[in-house]
């Protein structure tokens, strides 16, 4: 951003970035008012793949709605299901066996690594580097294989059940996960040398799109967007849920506030998730994966309940308003990228288009998750 900003508002033109644009990762449209290469104003237009999950939630019973959550975010599906089962369990007072909670944590963390790997590849591809995407996909493929062997699907898992899990993990999975951890650590070193250390990459991200902590707060940003701006906020730590208090892991926080900081946070998070998986495998208790007694039909008592979890993309929350019936009375899904993306309009003003798109990549967008 050394170049002087040449803002001539009377000579602007409108550039339609999207809904079919290679940099927007899906059907996102940004109407940019440009002055040459500089963005004067941007308006994000979302909702192209809005599916009204919240209304579906009202029309379906609790178990029937389970699989919708994994459709929200196709990269980190398990975190979203986790939140949903947690809030319903909390509301109906179902006690989850410890083993199930451990397996959930392991699975969610593996899924988080997979999601971050895909983001890493797509982000570097946004910057014009294609090979890291393929390397990241190769590593991600190991995770998908493991998850597929347990859950039966590769992307939109429907694995968590109220009170426990769909099925148990086996020794093969544990062995595969144990093999995966050192391999992933080695890959991380490769990424560090190939991408993180690369001068071109650093020059493109250093100092780009500084987001102040205050701005993050006003928009409710979470995940790496907040942590890259020096905010030590991770729902796993701030409001511990599931078995996360049992694990020893760090929350990476960077104070540079730029796109590189957001990148670094996510890369460090992969390492931290590996630590969680490692500890989870060590501590994994035996026992059942479903509670002994569980109501046949889920009918949470009337009232409203909120649960937040830290998904790969940030603080995801489900607000459940129950009237005591078989269906939720109201189910609000608070998606993290929605808030993160909202920042973009204000933050990209005065930026060059290539920096703005690099910034957009650093937000880790998954459009179905914004649109719900």
């Amino acid at each position, binding site marked *: 951003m050394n170049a002087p900003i040449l803002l001539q508002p009377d000579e602007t033109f409108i550039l339609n970035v999207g809904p079919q644009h290679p940099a927007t990762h899906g059907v996102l449209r940004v109407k940019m008012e440009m002055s040459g290469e500089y963005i004067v104003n941007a308006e994000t237009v979302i909702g192209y793949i809005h599916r009204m999950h919240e209304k579906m939630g009202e029309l379906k019973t609790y178990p029937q709605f389970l699989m919708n959550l994994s459709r929200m975010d196709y990269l980190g599906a398990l975190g979203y299901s986790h939140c949903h089962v947690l809030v319903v369990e909390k509301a109906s007072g179902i006690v989850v066996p410890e083993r199930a909670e451990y397996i959930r944590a392991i699975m969610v963390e593996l899924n988080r690594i997979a999601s971050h790997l895909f983001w890493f590849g797509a982000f570097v591809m946004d910057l014009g580097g294609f090979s890291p995407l393929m390397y990241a996909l190769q590593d991600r493929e190991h995770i998908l294989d493991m998850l597929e062997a347990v859950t039966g699907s590769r992307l939109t898992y429907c694995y968590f059940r109220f009170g426990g899990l769909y099925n148990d993990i086996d020794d093969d999975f544990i062995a595969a996960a144990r093999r995966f951890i050192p391999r992933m650590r080695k890959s991380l070193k490769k990424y560090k040398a190939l991408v993180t250390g690369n001068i071109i990459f650093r020059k493109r991200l250093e100092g780009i799109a500084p987001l102040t902590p205050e701005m993050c707060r006003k928009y409710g940003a979470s995940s790496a967007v907040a942590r890259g701006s020096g905010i030590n906020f991770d729902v796993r730590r701030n409001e511990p849920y599931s078995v996360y208090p049992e694990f020893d892991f760090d929350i990476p926080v960077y104070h540079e506030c730029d796109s590189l900081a957001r990148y670094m946070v996510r890369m460090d998070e992969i390492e931290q998730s590996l630590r969680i998986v490692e500890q989870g495998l060590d501590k994994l208790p035996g026992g059942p994966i479903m509670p002994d007694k569980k109501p046949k039909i889920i009918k949470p008592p009337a009232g409203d309940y909120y649960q937040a979890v830290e998904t790969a993309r940030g603080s995801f929350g489900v607000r459940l308003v129950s009237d005591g019936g078989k269906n939720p009375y109201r189910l609000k899904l608070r998606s993290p990228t929605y808030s993160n993306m909202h920042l973009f309009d204000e933050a990209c003003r005065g930026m060059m*288009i290539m920096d703005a798109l690099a910034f957009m990549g650093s937000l880790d967008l998954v459009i179905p998750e914004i649109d719900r």
Partner: protein
Amino acid sequence: MRLTLINVVIAVVAAIAFAALNAAYLVWAERRGAARIQRRPGPNINGPFGLLQPPLDGIKLMAKQLTIPGGADKAMFIAAPILAMFPAIMSFVTIPFSDTIVAKNMNVGILMIFAFASMGGMSLVFAGWSSRNKYAMMSSVRAVSQAVAYEIPMLITTITVVMITGSMDLMEIVRQQSGSILHWNIFPVLGNSHNLLMPFSFLIFFTCTLAETNRAPFDLGEAESELVAGFHTEYGSMGFGLFFMGEYANIVVGSCLTTILFLGGWNCPFGLFPGVWWFILKLYLLIGTFIWIRWTFPRTTIYGLLNLSWKILIPLSLFNLLFTAGLLKVF
């Protein structure tokens, strides 16, 4: 005059054939190379190792309809891809592949290549402008500033070489590098200059070649994550095909020039059996490096690109020029 004219005609035909063949098979090489780097097989269905892929792609492109977007400047829209191919083919005329394989050796051969290379940038401008597409337009503006910025250090570095050899004749430049690798202009230990900075000149020149041919990491004109496809967003069919061929032909010309100026042309590294095969070997090693670089690095920014040229390459190449001049004065 008699022989030269026939030579020129043959050369032009040969150059077009060479350029087209190279473009086709460099695409194949690029796709295979990229696939290897990414641990994929790459095109492997059509023919052995997918070798039939390029001609089939060519047939596909030719079979397609050339669409001209509404509101486009038709004449220039059609002229631009031709202008993209033309300079590269003209440059082949004067490139000596060996002692004997040269169409028309000129005493200002380097100048000729640079003169025609400077036209290449204009084709991007015309393509971008005539498409009436905002992405294409932005791309052509980028292409102009990029072409201007990198021509300067490239020419200065070339002048350094010309100063050492004292000739703008490409064959003469190669002849002066004959002998082992130590005579080459990249390591002129035994040559007519003892310039220790020549490896850096080579790096500067190579970087500029990357930038002038719009190759990654300097492919800002067609930055797909920002400008969709840049100046050729609106092109399909053979219009796109010509741009594609032009890009690869430019790479070949750039690599030929690098080989001649720095890597001793058709000379063998050990001083044995000079011949066209050495030239071809060096040429394709350089092109391989182009491909290798493309699939390793992310793209630079436009201001990063300009900063690199104006703040690093131009000062360094100027310093190098002065250093060489001083060296020539002393020795």
